[in-house]
């Protein structure tokens, strides 16, 4: 599995190609928590103009600049709160109230807020595509339930990307 890196498709601005940032979050050694990385890896195999993919275990303040430069940001992650295998697409708005204590990670809404506060810009569109997790045990395999949901989640991300392109054109 790839380590946290920017993919080759960096954010060269183009009116034809909106700058889209895909932030894949999770830990591939903790079972279903790695589903976001697997989805992003699959998407990365099909080069797409204007698309930047970033793999990370956590959302960090250091990503605020990359977020601020994107027209659209899509967070792909596993959810511990929804039913196992459930694929959800949720619009994200910048947070109004931020955590009092910064530990080592942020939630998507807080990252958008930080992007606004630091760089005076946040993406016009932000959404999270999540897959409900079943097992977060020490393994690099997905549970059968979550594995079965990967095609649906992939399609959800592709739909979001197509929607972005359609809005620009």
């Amino acid at each position, binding site marked *: 599995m790839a380590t946290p890196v920017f993919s080759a498709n960096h954010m060269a601005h183009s009116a034809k190609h909106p700058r889209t940032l895909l932030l894949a979050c999770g830990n591939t050694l903790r079972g279903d928590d790695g589903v976001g990385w697997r989805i992003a890896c699959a998407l990365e195999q099909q080069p797409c103009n204007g698309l930047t993919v970033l793999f990370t275990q956590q959302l960090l303040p250091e990503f605020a*600049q990359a977020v601020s430069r994107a027209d659209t940001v899509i967070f792909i992650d596993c959810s511990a709160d929804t039913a196992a295998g459930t694929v959800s697409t949720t619009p994200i708005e910048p947070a109004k109230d*931020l955590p009092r*204590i*910064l*530990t080592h990670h942020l939630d998507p809404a807080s990252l958008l807020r*930080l992007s606004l*506060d630091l*760089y005076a810009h946040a993406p016009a569109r932000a959404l999270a595509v999540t897959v409900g997790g079943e097992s977060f045990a020490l393994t690099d395999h997905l549970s059968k339930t979550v594995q079965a949901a990967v095609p649906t989640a992939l399609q959800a991300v592709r739909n979001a990307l197509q929607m972005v392109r359609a809005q620009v054109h």
Partner: protein
Amino acid sequence: MSQTITIDPVTRLEGHGRITLKTNGHGEISEACFSVTQVRGFEKFSEGRPYYEMPSLMARICGICPVSHLLASAKACEAIMAVEIPPTAAKLRRALNLAQSIQSHALSFFYLASPDLLLGMDADPADRNIFGVAKAHPELGRAGVGLRRFGQHMIELLGRKRIHPGWVVPGGVTEPLDAAKRDEILALVPDAYANIKLALTAYKQIASRFQDEIESFANFPGPFMGMVADNDGLEFTDGKLRMIDAKGIVLMDNLEAARFDEAIGEAVEPFSYMKFPYYKPMGYPAGSYRVGPLARLNIASHAGTPLADAELLEFKKLSNGPVLGSFHYHHARLIEILHGIEVIEQLFSESSILDKHVRATAGVNRQEGAGIAEAPRGTLMHHYKVDSNGLMTWANLVIATGQNNNAMNKGVLQVAQRYVKADKLTEGMLNRVEAVIRTFDPCLSCATHAFGQMPLVIELLAPDGSILDQVSRV
């Protein structure tokens, strides 16, 4: 009536700690204990493992300074192997260690300390955080985020991972640097310079507002220890240990890793899992000393890079001898960031940095070895013993934060006596008690090898030990 105040958890630290303040019958703070309440036991469970696994195992102690553990551990292994690593490997390791100091110092200064410095010790705690800084001083917020990203990205480019890179191994590093990565790193340097210059300028403008804190934040005479280069310059990776006293007189010099335990002992106290290292000739607790950025700048005669040398000259003018106030750790961190950027630029401008020979190999040639590196928070020592098959039989780690343990306790007492009135606890008082610990940027996860959490607790106790008041933050 006597009381005890407990701050539990202390916020904006790496790890989980507790502060207990005891008052006497006159309502004055008479005693302070900074307790670290967790333990993990890395030394014990490493027994039986092959020595060459130690760097990657020990690096897991900490997600902030894994590179320092990698280096100290690899050097201990190399002492067991009796090998000298290739010169290019030494340069690459030095660059990696400096990148880690840059990102760690940026985290400490901008994310953890700057809310107090820029927004005020008495500011609303709801705003006194990095997000408050981002709103009030976005240019400094961007500088902090930028410097941390610079250090983290460089670690990722060299070691393939921002956290727990596996690149450093006994004998050198696993693969050489390629020109594309070198060029990418050099391209990031101008922004890094701009960011640190902005931060240094801002810090010097606001430091004068904290004269009271400068005088009371762990400001006392005592020894300082750290690594220096052969030419007495600032050194993080391949130097020898020096200790000076509060007047600048050298107590110990040229101490090599193999002999560090002849000079450094470790005491324990019943209230904390964190050990209390001390300088053996002076005994405990008189031999307690400070390490880290302030100590490094105090013991080094120069930085060895032009911009940092100019800043160091100005820094040393803060005092006629060693700078004793621990509040100045913040300033020292910024100077070390500048120095780190300069050294990285120098190292990566040398053609030899691309040399392909970056790893030496050998088996077990000695059954004991020690390694030392300067971690962001101070001197880090790993000491191992192995059997003839190279299986670990014993390990001891002397961690930077532990070496500041006594100073942190003294600092908490000093601040509490100045600011805390037992009849009324205010946010500003409590924050200053926490802030004195933050000047040291302790990593309690490292110091106890315990799993890190942010919170810390303050307790107020009566003379009989009963809890009168308690403050917890999450």
